Structures are given as structure tokens and as C-alpha cells.
């Protein structure tokens, strides 16, 4: 195993965020208020996770990070598409809950929407972290 540089730690952080995003999405989509788990969102996120994890594994094994940074460059694109679909599925209820008084007093609705927004944030941060990885060395030369 080669000496790890800061980039690999950031990649690990990004990987954790990607997994967190997936978990938040799955929980939010099956929490009772929403029941609309979309395979596309989950699949795109899983592929991003696999790309990141595989790249990191190969980097650590081979000591060459060119594969990792290439895969890391692709992963946020997948996450972006997943996030857009996720947002598209939540726009209507967010408008109800936050933009009107249609759900005023409905704690379940408010919690579900807040959870969805938290999910957007986690996706966005995961995307940003993954992109940031590309700018860092993964292993010490």
C-alpha cells in the first residue's frame, strides 16, 4: 500500500457523503409521507459510490491516482443528475409546505420536507467534495 496523501482522505470523506446522500434519499423516499423511491436516483448514486470506491481502492493498490481522479471527475456528474431528479420529485410538496399554508401544522409533512432539503444539501456537498478531490494528490510521490 502506497503512502496516502490528503486527496485520498478527501475522497474517503466524499465517499462517506455519497453514501449518506443515498441513505437520506432512500429514507426520505420511503418515510410514509413520501413513497416514491426512484430506481434512477438510487442507481446513479450507487454508481457514483462504486466509481469513487473502486478508484480509491485501485489507487491505494497501484500507487497511481490517474484512474481515481478520472473516476472522481465522472462521479459528481452522476450525482448532479440524481439530485436534479430528486429535486424534481420534491418541488411540489416543498411548495405546499414552505410556500403556502397548505400543510401548516402538519409536523410529518414539515419533517419530510426538511429531510428532503437536508438530502439536497448532502448531495450538493458530496458533489463538491468529490470535485475537490480531483484537485488533490491522492498518494505521495
Amino acid at each position, binding site marked *: 500500500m502506497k503512502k496516502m496523501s490528503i486527496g485520498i482522505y478527501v475522497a474517503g470523506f466524499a465517499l462517506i457523503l455519497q453514501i449518506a446522500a443515498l441513505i437520506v434519499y432512500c429514507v426520505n423516499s420511503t418515510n*410514509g*409521507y413520501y*413513497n*416514491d423511491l*426512484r*430506481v434512477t436516483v438510487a442507481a446513479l448514486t450507487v454508481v457514483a459510490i462504486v466509481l469513487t470506491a473502486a478508484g480509491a481502492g485501485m489507487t491505494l493498490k497501484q500507487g497511481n491516482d*490517474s*484512474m481515481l*481522479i*478520472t473516476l*472522481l*471527475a*465522472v462521479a*459528481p*456528474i452522476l*450525482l*448532479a*443528475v440524481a*439530485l*436534479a*431528479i430528486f*429535486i*424534481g*420529485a420534491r*418541488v*411540489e410538496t416543498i*411548495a*405546499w*409546505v*414552505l410556500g403556502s*399554508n*397548505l*400543510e*401548516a*401544522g*402538519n409536523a*410529518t*409533512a*414539515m419533517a419530510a420536507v426538511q429531510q428532503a432539503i437536508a438530502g439536497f444539501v448532502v448531495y450538493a456537498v458530496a*458533489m463538491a467534495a*468529490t*470535485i*475537490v478531490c*480531483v*484537485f*488533490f*494528490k491522492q498518494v505521495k*510521490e
Partner: protein
Amino acid sequence: MKQAGKRSWLGLTSIFATLLAFLVAMGPVAETWRGTINANLGISGSRVVQDLSSENDLYTYKSIWANTNELVAHHKDIGERMSAEGSVLLKNDGNALPMAGANVTLFGMGAYYPFYGGSMGSSAPEGQNVSLAEALTQKGISVNPKMQAVYEAMGSIEDEAGGGFSGPTYLYRPGKLSNSFGVSNEVSGYEIREPSPSIYTEVGGYNANDNGFSQYSDAAIVVFSRPSSEAADYYPGALGIKEGTSAGATDPLGLDDAEREVLALAKQASDKIVVLINSNSTMEIEELKQDSEVDAILWIGTPGNYGMLGVADILSGAVSPSGHLPDTYAVVNANSPAAQNFGMIPYANQDEISDSKGTYADLRAGWYYVTAESIYTGYRYYETRYADTVLGNGNASSAVGASNGSAWAYQNEVSYPFGYGLSYTTFEQTLKSVDVDLGNRTVTAVVNVKNTGSVAGKDVVQLYVSLPYTQYDIDNGVEKAAIQLLDFGKTSELAPGADEDVKISVDMKYMASYDSKGAKTYILDAGDYYFTVGNGAHAAVNNVLTALGRTGLVDELGGSTSGNSANVKTWNLAALDTTTFAFSYDGDVPYAITNQMDDTDLNYWNANKTVTYLSRNDWAGTFPTKIDGLIANSEMLVRLRNDVYEIRHSDVEGTVTFGVDHGAESLKLADLKDVSDFDDERWDYLLDQLTLQDAMDLLSRYDTETEIPSIERPLFPQADGPNGFNGWAIGGTNSNLANRTDSSAPCYMSESDPNAGYSLNTIANEPVMAATFNKELVDEWGQVVGNDSLWVRGAIVWGNGLNTHRLPYNSRNHEYFSEDAMLCNRMGVAYAEGAKKFGLIMAPKHFALNTQETNRVGISEFINEQTAREGDLRAFQGAFEDADVLGAMTAFNRIGCTYMNGHVGVMQNILRGEWGFKGLISTDMVNGDLYFQVRESAIGGVTMMANSSDKMQPDGAWYYFTVDNIKNDAVLTGHLRENAKYLFYAVANSNAMNGFDSSTRMERVTTWWEGLMIGAEVVFGLLTVASLAMYVLSYRKKGEKVG
């Protein structure tokens, strides 16, 4: 360093590609919400292209207003008049009112923070409200400023626990209800929130030694408020009160101790106490009625922006009150038979309802209620039971349902009866004649009204009928109210001593009874029919009882009385008539009327529970109890799971024509503008051009702002609600329309129009309109909304709320007129006819039987056919059958176990068949993808679903709704084509076509935000390519392999 450079280019590539991917992926989302985004930005996504050489008058409908100043002035004027005629004086001891020029003190948080409209739905734009204090001041009544300061100080304190995203809430303003658009096994109690005067000093700076009482002591005006709201309910008794709040209240609609303390403080300020009731749900005010220190009670409902001016007109004496109650004020609301089955009642086997598609909550299928009270809601219960106590029938005096728990007596049960109202003058009504013409199915009454007092005023004539209750009825389960409103009229303002004949002509179909067991159609029983008039239902039934020679009557206030038999006319029918009303005549051929709702009766299903309907034949033995623990059996589960219609893939019923290319001979929708003949063959010619995909999109995507190229369909914006264009400012929409861009176009508004921000939902809520008993005034309001529509170019208003008030606990009663079906019916006709004069589609809602908000999406309402037809359906019938409205919005609820929109018996056979309705039908907001099913909606005749997301994806709830999957189902596609015809017919005959002729084209325009998105996509695309190129080049320079 070199590696860092390469990483940088790749990193930049990743950033730009990610942003590009995000924008591209958001494209469909933005397209889905395009109409909403544009509406909120005040822009339009399309424009009308007009052949300027056209010589046609493009504008069928023209506004009566020359400019927006006239529009605003008319709103203010009718807003004031509506409440002046629609506020109801219930008590006026010692002529406490009027009080011109008085100095008064206002008490209660409701005095300064009343509900002007619904908290949600039919609300009043806050910035336009004229407050009670302002209105009184304008009308010459001075208001105590010191107490005003106290209340305003308390009213400005925010509730730190509330608010959040929806904005601040206030700790001491009248409590609001808890809303939910979801479904739940929980209910929320209501907190009245009136602060006790004991905290006035600490919180509001009240000083008992400097409170202004002595200077403003002519009267103390106390306001008690209860909110109205969509998506919320009150609940009977203690269940309805939020735990730990509202001490001393036994019901959310009763007073609590804090309110009593406010009243006590008011009594310190003045010897004259005037109470205003600011609520659309009838409150329990018997204690105010009985309180000799309370001199006057005025019900004001929720008065809209300008209604307080009308209230002030009454208080000052500028106007003599002429309103009459649209609902019965019961002593204890929870004692009514309907209240026994209301609210949150779960199926006992909720989990069994769940299936592989979703849970019972996803299916919106977990709850129900049974209208075991039969026809006996509101006054039909109280006055019928009263009549039977007098007549000695049906154990009416038994303890069941009695407030005192011993024997039922009218004076213990009703505070103020339906139709009751006082005036500053007195009137004498003489029923001069009643002409019953069975051949022409009409009853015509002439009533002379004379002002016998000393003040000018208007009077209401209420025509009632008492039908015979026969052995046939008992044998066949037909119920008859002892008295029922047939129709009404209102005089002009009569000077003292003046008189006027009021003529009322009513279709006898509205006095026929529905017999679902024997004749299976409408009937008139053999026997004597008694027609009478009176100041409310109680006075009317007393007249009839007196004509029958009965004594021992009590009046509206509980005192001994006798009726006026001279005001009773009798008509006799020799034999049971089962044929005259067995057909409707709204189409080309008579349409047979027979049972359509057998399956909405709980007893149809052979479930573990049955219902015994309340019968006047045995009040004690049939008085409802709560029917809970119902288990949905296998047959019920099929309906509850919303999976009824099976799409056919090899149809044997022929094919349906779509997508014909007529080439140069093609028609546009504008070619059928104002074609009122539904059978004109050009409709079919036009429909032939429609593609199946277009027909499917019309139903499933609900975008009234989407062009349909095959027929050049225009946009036709729509709005809620019963108090006008809800939330629409005059200048807020459709900036690309002709009346925004062409100064010569009718209803032209420049961008700098000073009234551009004026909101149009200004009028009092429907119960106040109903209380006017003035059809002409409601027609006039309909005309105002019709004119509004020409200025804002909105063609549909979901505005005619016609459900009946089954109970005061339905907090959405503010969007419906009354407990009485005929008051709803006649006001619904007036409202629609007024609007229709200006081409507005005034669409009644929520069709039908939507009588509670709790779990309203999908709740099963079990009801027998007589109750439905003589209740909610009769309330709607006039608008469709007599006013020929061109639109309708359906209800959220089920009827029986069946999705409302898919109930063919009601939707197709009654609405379209019996009533001849040819207009468009929209669902309410699609809330619950697995409940609102598109295929069942199509079969039911729905023309557009309030759907705003794509449910036709392979993993969506409407996955089956694709051209390939349904194209061979001639029944389904046939309905889609037929539904499109109804939609086009309505639009073509509305003001949506104003400004159109056959040369008109619709063009989509790229809005600024769409341009921004496209521009960003281009920029990010270019940057992605450039970064990627630099990344590749950075390798090639070194001869490395990109990897």
C-alpha cells in the same frame, strides 16, 4: 506541479460538466413547472398572434368597467352592501341598536384581529382589509383608542413556538386550526387563544384607571371569533379542544372562560353590550342569548375586505338589517344526529387494505363515516323533531339527543333557528296565493310584504313547504322533513308603510322526494301539502302546526306562541305520483331517473356493520350512534384499492378516431368559438384532428397554459375560489396578453396602472352571501367576478362552493353557503348566472358530498340515495341543470368505497345524464398518486386532472397511461375523446376565446429565465469542452497517455 495542472483541468472539466448535467437534468422539471413559474413571475409563456386584417369582433364579452378605478370602486361598494345585507341581527333587546354617533369600546382580540375570510382558502387579502374600528369611525361611531392600544400591543406579540417557514404567528390573536393535506389517524384539538383580561396590564399595558371606559361608554362591542379553513376541522365536545387550553369550554365552538371574562370586563365599560359573532361555524351562544345584560347579538360571518363597513352601516343605523341565518344555531352542536358520525373513524382492518402498491395511507383508503342521520341535518332535524313533539309522533320527546338528558324539547336545543333574523323595523307578510301547476311542474306563490314599522328596510320572503309523511314512506324508508325551504325572494327597500308583492316561482322537482326502495325514482306522496312563509323555518313550521289545529307551540326564543294559519295554503294530491319526476328534460329526449347510488349505502356491502337510518317514525329507536369498527370486506377492498378498470388490449368495440390530418381544411378551436350547439358536427370534425396523445395530455397533465398545436387551443388560466380570483392581482398575470400590450384592446391595463396590485378576492365568504337571501345581489357579485375575469384573462373560477353544511364542525363551511340544499342551490344559480353573463366559467365545487375535511382525500362517505339526492346533490343541481354552468370541480372523497371521479352513477348518469351537464370537469389537486387514478377518472368523465408531475414514468403511479398501452381500448379512448369534447365545448363558449378568431395563433415564447437556463447550458457546455481539451492537451504535451 505538472500533475497539479492536469488535475486542475480535469477538476474544472468536472465542475463545468457537473453544472451542465444539473441544468440539463433540471430542464424537464422546469418545463413541468413552467406555467407556475411564469405565473409567479407575472409573465406569460405564450403569446397570441393575430391577423390584423380580421374584421371580426374578437371580443364576445366586454367589461362594464372603463378602467381599473371603476373595478376597485365596484368591489368596495358590493363588499359593503353584501355584509350590510348578510349580517344577521339575532338579538336586540330594548332596541339597543342602532347607535348612530355613539362612543364605543371594542373588546376581545377578535375586535382587532377578526377573521375577514378563511385562514386557508377564500381568504381576504390582508392589505385591503377595512378593520372594524376603521369602519365604525367612517360611519360616525367613535372607538376607544386606549383599549385599541391595549389590544394592538397584545396582538403584536409573536409566538416563539410558532411561525417558521410560514411566517410569524401571534400569541394572543384568535387561534387558528391545524391544517393537513395528508391523511392521519390523529386529530388536533383547537385552542381558542383569547387572553384573559387578567394579563392585559402585564402584556398590553392596560391601566384600569385610564382605560377610556367613561368616555366610550355608549356601548361595549365584544367580538368572538372562530376561524374557517380548508384542510382542517373542529371536533365535537372535549375532543375538539387542545389539551390544556381553553379552560371552561365544553366545545371548540363554545365560549371559554377567558371569553367570559372579556364579556365581564365589557359589562364594566358600558350598560349596553353588543356581541358580534365572527364565525362561519355556528357557535354555541345560548348563554349570550339568555344573558339579560347582553343587549344585542349580530352575526357577521367573515366579512371580507370591506364587509366591516356593512357591519358598521347596521350598527350606526344607516342600514336596517335584513339578513337571515343560513344555519341553525344549536344549543349543543354535538347533540345533533350528524355529529355522532364525524371526523376520524378508521376502518378496523386498515392494514388489510394495504397492498403491494402501497399502504392504506398511500391508497387514501383508511377512513370512513356514515351519514346515519339520513336527511335530518340542520333545521330538518330540529324543526321536524319539534313538530313531532307537538304532533306526538315517533317518540320525539324521548331523551335521546336531548341536551338536558331527560326529554327533548325545542327550546332546550335551538338558540336561533334557520332563516331567522331581526330588523330595525317590522314587516307583515301575507301569503296571497299559491298556484300548484303539476303539469308544468311549478309552484308559484305571491306574497305581499308591508313595512309596518318606522324605519325603511328590506325583507326576505321564505317560501316553505310541508310534505305529507305517509305509510308508504314508512314502508319504503322515505323520510320527510316537517318543513323545507323551497325558494325565497327579497323586497326592495320599503319605506315605512310601503308594501310590495314578491312573486316566487319554483320547479316542483325540488319538492319531490327520492324513493330508492319502492319507485326507485322521485315521488310525490298522496296527501296534503302545506305552503307557508315565515321568519325562518321555525316560524314556518309553527304556521303549519297551527293550520293543523295544534297548540302548545313555542317560538324562536322559547316562549309560548301560536303560528299564523292564515299564511298557510294547502294543496292536495289524490294519489301517489311516481312518474312526473321520474324523468329529467335537459337533453333532447327525457332521461330516466332511477337509482344510481345503491353502492354508496353501507348496507349494500354486507359488511360487519349495518346502519339504521334516523327516521321520524321512531326518533328514539333510530337516533344514530357512532358506527365504528367497520371491516372492509373483500368486495370493498377492490374499490378501496383504486384498481377497478381493466385496460383492454384487443378491443371488440371498434376503434376511436384520432389524429386525422384534414390539411388545409383543418379546424381550430377558434372556428367553433361561441358554437353553443353541442351536436354541431364540426365538433366531431375537430376532434378527429386530435391525437390520442393530445387527448391523454388534456386529462393527465392539466396544463391549461399549454398550446395544443393540432387545434390551436388557447391558454385559459384558472383560479380559486368562492370569494373571487383568490390571490390574483389585477396586473399580476399574463403580461403578454392583448390587454397588456395593445392599448386599443378591451380591458387594457398599462404596466403603470395604479391598481395593478389590487387583489380581487375581496367579498365576504359564502355564508354571508347566503344570509342576504338576495339572489340579485349574489348575481351582481357573480357579474363582478365575471368582469374581473375579463381584466385578468382568467377563464375559470372554482368559485361556486355548493356543498352543504352537514355540521358546523366542518371548518370549510366558509366556502359553502348553508346547511340547506335549496339555499345553496338558488345562490349557486345566481352566482353562476352572474358570472356567465361575462363568459366566465364559474365552476361549482366540490362535487359532491364533501362534507368534512378530516382525511378528506379518499375518505369513504357512506350515504343513502335519498339523503344524497335531497342534500348535497340538490345543492349542486340548480347550477348544472338551471344555470347551465360549463365547469365543475370534483371532491376529494369517496362515495361509498368508490373514488369520486370514477363513480359512473353520479358522474356520468346523474351529472351528465339527468342534469345534462356539458362542461369541463376538473379533479381537485391530485393528492395521492395511488388514489387519483387517471383511467377511472377518464371513465367517470373527468376532462382535466389537477396534476403537476409526471406520473406516466415506468415507475410512476400512472405507468399504464401510454398510447401503446391504451390505444386498443375503445372504451377508454372513447371516453378520452368525449371528455376532450366537453372541455373544448366549455372553453369555446367562454371568455377564454375573447380576442380569438380562426386567424389567431398561439406561439410559445422563450421567457427570460428559460433564456438564462439555455445560456448557462451553452456556457457550461463550452467551458466543459475547453477544459477537457486542455486536460487532453496537457497530457499530449508530455506524450503521456490519458488515463
